[in-house]
């Protein structure tokens, strides 16, 4: 009996936060279903959510790694646009889009590595420093692009378009890739040395260092991963809309952060949940679209976004405070 209890309590220690955000997601769906059943059974509503979700997933899941490592990054919303700009510019100049994709992702990784190195080596506050980089990079984009967007209709004819963002019998391919990304990240976070070291570092970096973990390297890699995720998100969106525009990504800044925390990853480091974050993304995406779908005006959107963040935080308090 006692053994059973202990396994149950360990299970909740490991999965409580993920289960919590699944619970909020289900609750939200029920509320919408009761509030606007006609709107809710129309497939086009869910289709528009599914267009938004993959991008948000590419942004949010790597942030779970970074927040679990005890850091935060705001610059990802600009990295998203820089990578998309590199991609679109190269495609426009006749470079093979597959190569452009690789170079775009590489750009994201390089920016992540730079931001991470800056923060870790000079011991800067990641919140403030990445806020600086957020503005700086956005400025660079606006200057380089002359505030003009780039249209790349030509990728339509290239094989990467149907493979990455095409329609497979009505099924958007980006959802397939986002799902693969989630599964990969789940194992990467929970069953791989990288994720485990991130959790140790975020939990107690002094202990991790004493046990021979290279704390700075782990954190820089986490920043790089955020850069890679942002680049993928930015490039996918650019491909879906055939357009790079210089303000792109800014709108995702607060939504992706909200999804991390609504998903149940605490801000203090050492813990994180990939599954929780997926449902966090679901909650945010449905809030964005659902409010309109049930016939309320767009003005309500931010109000409900705020409300759900606060309610989710209060709910996750049930999993307790940080143990030391």
């Amino acid at each position: 009996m006692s053994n059973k209890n202990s396994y149950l309590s360990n299970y909740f220690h490991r999965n409580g936060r993920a289960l919590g955000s699944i619970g909020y997601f289900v609750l939200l769906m029920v509320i919408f279903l009761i509030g606007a059943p006609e709107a809710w059974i129309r497939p086009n509503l869910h289709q528009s959510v599914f267009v938004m979700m993959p991008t948000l997933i590419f942004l949010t899941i790597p942030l779970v790694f970074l927040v679990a490592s005890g850091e935060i990054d705001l610059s990802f919303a600009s990295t998203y646009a820089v990578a998309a700009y590199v991609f679109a510019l190269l495609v426009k100049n006749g470079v093979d889009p597959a190569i452009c994709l690789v170079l775009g992702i590489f750009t994201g990784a390089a920016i992540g590595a730079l931001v991470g190195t800056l923060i870790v080596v000079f011991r800067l506050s990641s919140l403030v420093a990445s806020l600086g980089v957020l503005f700086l990079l956005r400025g660079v984009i606006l200057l380089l692009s002359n505030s003009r967007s780039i249209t790349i209709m030509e990728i339509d004819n290239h094989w990467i378009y149907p493979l990455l963002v095409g329609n497979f019998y009505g099924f958007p391919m980006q959802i397939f890739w986002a799902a693969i990304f989630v599964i990969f990240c789940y194992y990467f976070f929970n069953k791989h040395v990288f994720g485990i070291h991130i959790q140790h570092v975020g939990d107690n970096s002094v202990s991790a260092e004493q046990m021979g973990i290279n704390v700075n390297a782990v954190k820089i890699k986490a920043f790089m991963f955020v850069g890679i995720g942002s680049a993928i998100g930015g490039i996918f969106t650019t491909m879906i809309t055939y357009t790079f525009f210089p303000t792109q990504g800014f709108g995702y800044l607060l939504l992706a952060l909200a999804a991390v925390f609504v998903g149940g990853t605490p801000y203090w480091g050492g813990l994180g949940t990939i599954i929780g974050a997926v449902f966090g993304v679901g909650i945010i995406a449905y809030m964005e679209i659902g409010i309109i779908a049930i016939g309320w005006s767009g003005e309500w959107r931010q109000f409900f976004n705020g409300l759900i963040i606060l309610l989710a935080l209060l709910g996750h308090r049930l999993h307790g405070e940080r143990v030391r």
Partner: protein
Amino acid sequence: MENIIELDNVTKRFGGITALNKASLKVTRGEVVGLIGDNGAGKSTLIKTLVGVYSPDEGDILIRGKKVNTWNALKARESGIETVFQDRALTPQQSIVKNIFMGKELRYPFGFIKEKEQIFEANRLIREIGFTSKLINAESPVGNLSGGERQGVAIARAIYNKAELIVLDEPTNNLSLNETQKVFDFVLNVKKSNRSVLFIGHNIYHVYDISDRFVILDRGEVVHQLNKNDISTPEELMKIMRDTIGAH
């Protein structure tokens, strides 16, 4: 006798302060060395340098007679040195099993972790250490454990890695009599298996009971070394310590 590790004239400075001044120390196979000194004598700096948390500014570190060029915590662990730090070096939100294998996870190719094997080994180890509560198993978070149990996890880590030298930094601090006895039993077991222990303590009686040799540290310098045969009581050790520190 083979020297497991040797510090040769090691100096460590922090800003303008010399925390360790040309300190030399060696630990040979199968011996228990007691490191004693007053607060601020440099015990902590010496230990952290010995186990690679700090790298020395001057002087050499020799592992089994061979000089090492780069020295860090990972290198020390790879050289067979495990440390039970004063603060236990645990991550309290993580499970016992993750803590036991922290930094030295059992891995498949590409860095994926042998989770089942780790859990099996961790459960075996916590039985061996003697966790009495059935509520505790390898997947319990460390944050739920008492001070003595946390020390048990830190020791289990050193046991699992079959270190040739185990450094125990104030291991009996805040422990009950029963738990202190467990630490002593552990030290004797390590010695019996022809491995070595470096034991750091405030409590002269604890250090006296367990050690074969004593190293006295004062203001960053090794001021005296003596064998247990040279003295007959802990009081004598205490007197020598007072005299050397006073004379120094």
